[in-house]
C-alpha cells in the first residue's frame, strides 16, 4: 500500500495548528501538525510530505529558515508561509527564496486551497 502524500502544518500555536489540520482534513487531505520546524525536520515524514504550511514567527527556527533547510534537497518541498505579522521585508525574502505564497492570518479557506493547488500542481 502506498502512503498518501501528506500536508505538514508547522505552527507553534496549538489553536491554529489544530484548526488548520482540521480544515485540511475536512477537505479530504491527509495532514499532520508539528509544533516546531525542528520537530518536522526530525520526523521521518519529509519524503511523504507534499506540501508544508509554516508559520513565519516561531520560537527557534522560523518558517522561512525551515524552507532554507528544505531547499538543500534536490526537490525542495513546496512551502506556503502563514503569518500574523505581514512584513514587506520578509515577504521579499520569501519570494526571492522561491516561496510564492505568503498568507496573512486570518486567511480564508479559499486562499489556503488556492495556494495548495498552486504549489502541488507544479
Amino acid at each position: 500500500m502506498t502512503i498518501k502524500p501528506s500536508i505538514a502544518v508547522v505552527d507553534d500555536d496549538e489553536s491554529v495548528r489544530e484548526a488548520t489540520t482540521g480544515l485540511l482534513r475536512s477537505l479530504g487531505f491527509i495532514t499532520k501538525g508539528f509544533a516546531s520546524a525542528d520537530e518536522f525536520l526530525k520526523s521521518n515524514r519529509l519524503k511523504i510530505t507534499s506540501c508544508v504550511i509554516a508559520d513565519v514567527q516561531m520560537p527557534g527556527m522560523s518558517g522561512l529558515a525551515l524552507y532554507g533547510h528544505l531547499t538543500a534537497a534536490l526537490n525542495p518541498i513546496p512551502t506556503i508561509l502563514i503569518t500574523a505579522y505581514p512584513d514587506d521585508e520578509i515577504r521579499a525574502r520569501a519570494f526571492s527564496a522561491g516561496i510564492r505564497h505568503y498568507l496573512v492570518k486570518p486567511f480564508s479557506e479559499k486562499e489556503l486551497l488556492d495556494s495548495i493547488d498552486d504549489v502541488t500542481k507544479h
Partner: protein
Amino acid sequence: MKAAPSFPVVKPSSLLPVIAIVLAAAIFVVDTVTDLEIAVPVFYTAVILISVRFCTRRGVIFVGLGCIGLTLLSDILTPQTSTSAAGIINTTISVLAIVSITYLVLKTEAAERSVYEARAQLAHVARVTTLGELTASLAHEVNQPITATVANATAGLRWLSAEPPDLDEARAAIERIVRDANRAGTIVGRVRGLTKRAPAQKVPCDINDVILEIATLTSSEFYKRHVKLRTELPRDLPKANADPVQLQQVVLNLVMNAVESMDAVPEAKRSLFIGSARNPAGGITVTVRDTGLGLKGDEDAERIFAPFYTTKSNGMGLGLTITQSIVESHGGRIWAEANTPKGMVFRFTLPDMPGTS
C-alpha cells in the same frame, strides 16, 4: 526588559586581577623590606581601585580587608618601625586610607547601578504607558484564536454537509471554537484591565514635583537626543487634587511624544518647554511646548486624541487617548494647538482642591 547586569557592569580583561596581585605584592615587599618612614601601604588604594573592575561587592571588601591585613603584617615584620610613633601613625594613616577608598568605591558603584536600573525602569514604563509593544503583541495573540476559529468553523460546516455528515469531527471543531473564543476573551479582558486605570487615589499633589520627577527620569533622553529643556515652575502654585502616579503618566506621555516628534528636526532646533501656572479661572494649567514636526497638513488638533490614531510606524495610538481620559477623570481639560513657527503646544488644566475658592 533585560535584567540589570550583575555587578560589575563592564566585562574585565583577565589581565586586571594579575596586575592587582602583582601591585599588592610589590607594595608589601617595599613596605616590609624598607624602613622608609612613609606610609607606603597607602598605595594599596590603587589595588582596591583596580579590583573594583573585576570583583563583586563582597570581593572588593575582601580585597580591602586583605590590604589592611598586609599592612599590619608588614608592620609586624618590620620591628624597627612597628613601635615608633611615626610607624604607628603611618600604619594608622594607611589603614584609614584603605577603609575610606573601599567605602567610596563601593558607594560609587552602587550609585552607577541605580542609575542604570532607573533608566531601564523608564524604558519599561514608557513602553507600557504608551502601550506600544504591548498592544502589538496582544493584537497578535488575539489574531491566533480568530484564525483558528475561521478554519474550525469552515471545517465544521464542511463536515456537516458531507455525505454522510461527520458529526464527531464537526463537534470537535465546534468545541475548539468555544475554547479559542474563551482564550480571545481573556486577552481582551487583559487589555481592558490595562487601559482602565485602578480607581484614582487622589491626594493633594504638587504638579511641579511631578514635572521635575519626569524631567529627571527622562534627562538621559534629552541628553541623547540633544533636546534643550526649559521649565517655568512657579513656587506658589496651588496644589491639585490628583493621583500622582496618573499625573506622572500624563506628563511622561506628553514629554516623550514631544521628544520623539523632534527626532526629525535638526539637533540645534530641538527645544522643549514645560511650564505650570495658576489658572485665573481657578486651578492650574500645565503647558508642554515642542519644536517638532507639529500637525501634518490635514490633521486637526482634536483627532490626535482619538483612539488608535498614530503617526508613528510602530505606535498604537493610545497614549494621548489615555492621557486625555486621565485628565478628564480629574475634572480637567486637555487640548493641543500648533506652535509657531513649528511644533506642538499641549495644555491641560486641573481644578483646585475642593473647598478652595
